[in-house]
């Protein structure tokens, strides 16, 4: 396995692209929830699976709703969204949802919005298109995340990690965009193309 690293310049470009994408995502989520939302400045890293699982473990709270959504195209991967129990309950109250079914649906919708807006925008900036699979949800205790086979297919992942906050409603979530080796290579090429046009 060849280790792929992003140079500081490449990271800077990606960071800029993500900032644009996040602005878009925040506005749409705020529309959906009819509330003021903010996203933290994304933190971009390339890490192996062990490091990724450690990152999951470091999330606070015992039990999380965990949803994923795959995206395909030249740039492909998966978004993983974590929202803790308390935030999920606040989301239910805010959207006046009845029961677990509606809550799960709302979490999936939130995942979908974040995945779609972030990756679509990112893809657009890199002159490509992506398509989305249906999101899925499960409630997994974080200490069992290591045994989740879903992540075993990745050797190395690019992690774009940000926090979603709705201050008034106390809704916090964390989203990770995970991509595999092929997409990391593709992304690196695209970032370099953009870099060439800038310099």
């Amino acid at each position, binding site marked *: 396995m060849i280790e792929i690293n992003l140079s500081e310049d490449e990271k800077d470009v990606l960071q800029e692209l993500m900032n644009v994408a996040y602005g878009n995502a925040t506005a*749409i989520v705020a*529309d*959906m929830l009819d509330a003021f939302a903010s996203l933290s400045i994304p933190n971009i890293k390339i890490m192996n699976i062990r490091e990724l699982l450690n990152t999951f473990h470091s999330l606070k709270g015992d039990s999380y709703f965990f949803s994923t959504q795959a995206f395909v195209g030249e740039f492909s991967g998966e978004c993983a969204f974590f929202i803790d129990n308390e935030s999920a309950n606040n989301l239910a109250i805010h959207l006046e949802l009845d029961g677990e079914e509606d809550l799960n*649906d709302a979490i*999936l919708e939130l995942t*979908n*919005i974040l995945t779609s807006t972030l990756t*679509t925008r990112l893809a657009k900036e890199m002159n490509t298109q992506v398509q989305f699979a*249906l999101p899925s949800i499960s409630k997994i205790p974080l200490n069992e995340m290591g045994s989740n086979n879903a992540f075993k297919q990745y050797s190395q992942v690019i992690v774009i990690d940000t926090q979603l906050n709705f201050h008034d409603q106390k809704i916090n979530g964390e989203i990770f965009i995970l991509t595999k080796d092929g997409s990391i290579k593709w992304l690196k090429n695209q970032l370099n193309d953009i870099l060439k046009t800038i310099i």
Partner: protein
Amino acid sequence: MAEKSTQRYPQNNNLNEKLIASIDNGIIILNDELKILYFNKWLELHTSIKEGDIIGETIDSVFTNINARTLQRKVKTALRMGTPTFYTASVTKYLIPIKIDQINISNFKHMRQDVSVIPFDLKQQYVALIISDQTNMTNIHNQLTFNIKKINELNLELLKERKTIDQRVILTKIDTRHHITDISLAYLELLDMKKGDMLKSNYFDTQRLRISQELKEKIFDYMQRKEVLKYEEISLSSTGKEICLLNTLVPEYDKSANHIGFIIFGENITSAKLVQEHQTKLLENSRTAAMGEMISMIAHQWRQPLSVINTVVATLKIKKALNILNDEIIDESYIKIENTITYLSETIDDFRNFFKHNKELKTFTIAHLLQKSTQLLKAEIEVLNIDYEEDIDINIEITSYQNELIQTIINILKNSIDAFKEINTENQKISIKAYEEIAHIIIEIEDNAGGIPQEILSKVFEPYFSTKSKNGTGLGLYVCKTIIQEHLKGRITMKSKNDHTLTLIELPKILQNSVAV
């Protein structure tokens, strides 16, 4: 032959319409107010609703189960993002209620659906709902979930059982080089050792295991042949305590049937060994006591023949003094003395025979058994004026250990005789009955020597229990029970009513391969 077209399928050939009509999905086009603008053939067939009847209606008025607020949100978001939003079968189950009649998925009343809300026309604010049937997938998913749950439950049960086995079963696992790979908690507790100290050590470690070289070689031999072997071992605990185990060595194989070592299941027989030793000691004690009783019986037996000899000798002396002693008288007296001495000698032989423990099974009649048993007691029975009666079929035969059975019957008869000595009763009687019952011989010994109180009847077979006022070791009936049950594979019970005591002995007609002590 007509030439096939390789040109792109023309757009004007109603491609879209044809495809949409034949597609295996439901398609609904809605505007941003949720009004139905298109309802495809697939949906018409599945819902029995005609497109013409619902065009312009809001979808939630046609399908009242739909939560308009949620759908509105999804439509709005899709149009805002320019990318689809979704309903998933796993969460929302279905959007359009479509009944299903298939037997294999009859767990569901309605078709499970994934629905994509696609921003179809951003300018006009139209969305297309693409509905796909996910019932089979959901069914499989549910079955999988159910099975995973079941597996988890079974796994939990297994873990629990494994824990119980670990705590209760004495078990050692060794690899093919005899190194211990696992050892149960139950065994570790017995040995008073820690798992870490035992793992990887050699099973045949002489510090712990006390087995003979001969047995060790036998175990090696069975291991080589990968055969099951039962053997006894003595292990030393960390405190030096000896632990006797009855082990079963079983070869162990992995999933691919490769031989990976052996499992040794142990049964703690330390207490059983102690009991066995104790029992042997008790039997020895009882033999000593019985020997004493025998000597007293011989004394009784000899009294009469000795007085015969005495009389003959005295008669000889008198006749000699009177000078009337002739050869004929001498010969007669000589024969009489000789016969009597032979009788005395036979008594000694019988006595010796009773204590010679013959380990061979023998076939004999019950009549012969009783004759032998009562031979030494006859004198005492006569002196005490006890009426002795036998009611037996002289042809009944039994295959058993004769001397052990004689010892038992003498013990029971002696108990009756001793009981008569302690009470004054008229019409003293001992009667013995013997008869056959399919595969068994029943011997009943009854006396009227006062009986046994009911409250102590259940204790008479316990060791060191005696009702005798003196000279009772309390071992007699215990030994009888041990002999009858353990060695002769029979049953002995005692009943008492009024002045009568009835001892019932049930024996197998033919005893097989028992080990006499």
